[in-house]
């Protein structure tokens, strides 16, 4: 007994100061790859090496809205597994940053698309297809009362039920790290519960395999409203490297409505914290969608 007390005193406080202080990831950490669309002259180089087709090139045959001689290069951070192969294939136009806070409520904002015209000298950049992500003062337009309401309902204590819908277990690893002394999610009033009936939020991982589709649906229906659903990792966002197949539905939002998407493969524990705090509006964000209040 004495040994335990001695150990407890000698171990210093190891909990980090998230979100007040965010430790920078180490050098070599592979965060968000950034494509310098304007600089690119050969769109196929990165798309050819991307293992999940997060980066892809489409032409008018794939999408009739693309003019005949044009190509569209798109990168979807939701499908990205942060392997760094794109930057290795094209260091001139792609750089790997350390940015890993990528959670968002709007799935579309995870995809950037650029149009190119093909010519004898390669591909020439024409324009970006999407407007830049909404600035944070947009949230004010939606009504600070709504935000306050969400904070009142979920802000003091949030119960999370984790549902593994077929993941490789990597995301579970990082989610369970949230319960250790370093990340200590309970200091935010958030804890993991054993039953969906006690839950306010479902944390879903995995592409939703065929054999877990029904279990996920039933878990969602067993969760009383108001409730939130957070899709964790590339698989839960769009099927990840497993995509859509006979065995995999291709993402959590093919089965249940999803409120927040957290990219990563797996997302770091701090990215998970950001995504969860985002869902309950405890953090500033680019979020504009509302969580559902139905049952």
């Amino acid at each position: 007994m004495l040994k335990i007390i001695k150990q407890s005193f000698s171990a210093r406080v190891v909990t980090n100061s998230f979100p007040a202080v965010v430790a920078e990831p180490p050098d070599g950490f592979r965060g968000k790859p950034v494509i310098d669309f304007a600089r690119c002259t050969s769109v196929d180089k990165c798309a050819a090496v991307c293992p999940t087709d997060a980066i892809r090139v489409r032409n008018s045959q794939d999408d009739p809205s693309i003019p005949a001689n044009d190509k569209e290069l798109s990168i979807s951070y939701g499908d990205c597994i942060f392997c760094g192969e794109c930057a290795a294939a094209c260091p001139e136009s792609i750089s790997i940053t350390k940015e890993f806070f990528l959670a968002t409520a709007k799935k579309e904002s995870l995809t950037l698309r650029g149009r190119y015209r093909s010519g004898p000298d390669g591909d020439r950049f024409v324009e970006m297809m999407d407007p830049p992500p909404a600035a944070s003062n947009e949230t004010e337009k939606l009504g600070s009362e709504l935000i306050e309401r969400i904070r009142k309902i979920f802000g003091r204590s949030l119960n999370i039920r984790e549902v593994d819908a077929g993941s490789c277990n990597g995301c579970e690893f990082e989610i369970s790290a949230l319960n250790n002394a370093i990340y200590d999610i309970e200091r935010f009033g958030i804890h993991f519960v054993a039953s969906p009936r006690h839950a306010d939020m479902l944390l879903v991982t995995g592409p939703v395999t065929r054999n877990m589709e029904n279990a996920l649906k039933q878990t969602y229906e067993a969760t009383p409203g108001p409730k939130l659903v957070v899709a964790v990792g590339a698989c839960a966002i769009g099927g990840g490297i497993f995509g859509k197949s006979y065995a995999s539905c291709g993402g959590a939002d093919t089965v249940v409505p999803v409120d927040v998407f957290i990219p990563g493969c797996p997302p770091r524990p701090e990215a998970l914290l950001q995504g969860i705090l985002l869902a309950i509006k405890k953090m500033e964000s680019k979020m504009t969608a509302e969580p559902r209040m139905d049952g």
Partner: protein
Amino acid sequence: MDSREKIKAAIQEGYGQRVTFRDGSAKNELYIILKDKYLSNLPEICSNLSKTFKAFFVTLIPNDEREINGKFWVYYVFSIPKEDLFLILSVPVDPRQREIPSISTVIDAAAWFEREMKEWYGIVAFPNVRNHATHPDWPEDIYPMLKDFDASGFVPRVKGAFDFRKVEGEGVFEIPVGPVHAGIIEPGHFRFTVAGEPIINLDIKLFYTHKGTEKIAEGTTPGRTVFLAERISGDSSFAHALAFCHAVERLSGIEISKRALVIRTLLLELERLYNHIGDTGALLLDVGFASGAQWAFRLKERMLQLNEVLTGSRLIRGMAAIGGVRRPIEDTVHKHEMLHQTISDVSKEYERLADLVMSTASVLDRFETTGKLKLKNAARLGMVGFAARASGVNRDLRRDHPHCAYPYLKLNVPVHSEGDVLARFNIRGEEVRESFKLIAQLHHQHVNEEIMTAIDPIPPSSQALGYVEGWRGEIVHWVMTDKEGNIYRWKITDPSFHNWRALKVAVMNNIVPDFPVINKSFNLSYSGNDR
């Protein structure tokens, strides 16, 4: 005559006209091809290989080769550790009559492999069994691993119900658990039959996380498949990817640089460390010793942060590559120091934690004699890895089929015989200490060599095994390339596929509240099993 030739001669003498031989692309693989007419001799040959040569059954690989040679083939892989040799018994199957004798009657370890073969290929070895690798809503006559099955197609659901073994009697209850489990853990269904507290039967239903990994890799490049391999089982990302890379390198016949071997070995041991340390914590949590558990989780977090500093990824992803490793890990002073400091601190603290656990009677009381698994059963089930070694099975691929830098390192393989939770707990601690010793032998080696040896092009129409001793146990992949050098067939054998069956035996007569700690003491991968 060397031992390989001796073995060949002995088999030739026993089976003469019935078999032919072929050398594999890799030096330690010998293919024994059984002629069509002598299919009925299959169980007898397997039984003899197992008894006469003390061969260990490793895996069973069905393959649809109709577009190559008009037949199905089933490869039975046996390992002879003393000679570092793999015997691959290749058996042809007539596509019009997809039947093959079962070897499970002589080698029980093959049972789950044969059941999966029936459901994924339609090749029947084991008639009249309940479905294992598919769920009841999967149509009976659709075999997803056949070449003419379109992986992207939607398969309709049919009506069906799980068929669990019923045990009846007064005071006998059934407890269903899962697939969504109470903690942050993978999905699977357990059906307990209990009489009061003691468990009298356990049925396990898996394949909830089946993602069709082997199927979706077919036709893609080996380069892309490395990333797929990293996601078979998240906590063995590096080991699985490495086993795949080994398979491609062995079918190409290339040697990779010593520097790459050293880095690979270091990363394999780091993966072993963070998992064993994490498990120490999880086991303590399952018996209610929270302060010890949190201590272990703190040490695990330090190991994960070390992984991120060295490789850029907490789970050591993005490192394994065909021909070497993707990035160097000792290229800065900071990384050197971080490695040295973390290993030094964690090894000292782990000793203090182990000391604390060993002097806490309440923990030892829960661990001792719980979930006992005898050597007889462990051997019969073909168990592998640390869980097998805790029951007395003396097998470790690092010693028996050396790979990476292990041939050059001093390695001790701890083996226990009690087979209870305490043995599986202790063996983890001993493997942790061994890993620290191995890492100490690996510092600063061959730093001037290249980390990558290119293989260009990947040889077409070739095959080989690729294996590593992952932290759970032996991981064995088999890769066959097509005419373009892309993947024709990829067979993944995770150690959990062998070991899940052991859980049913280990829980018998234990009480239900001990189930979580018994389950955790094996720490089997659902995703590794289901793929």
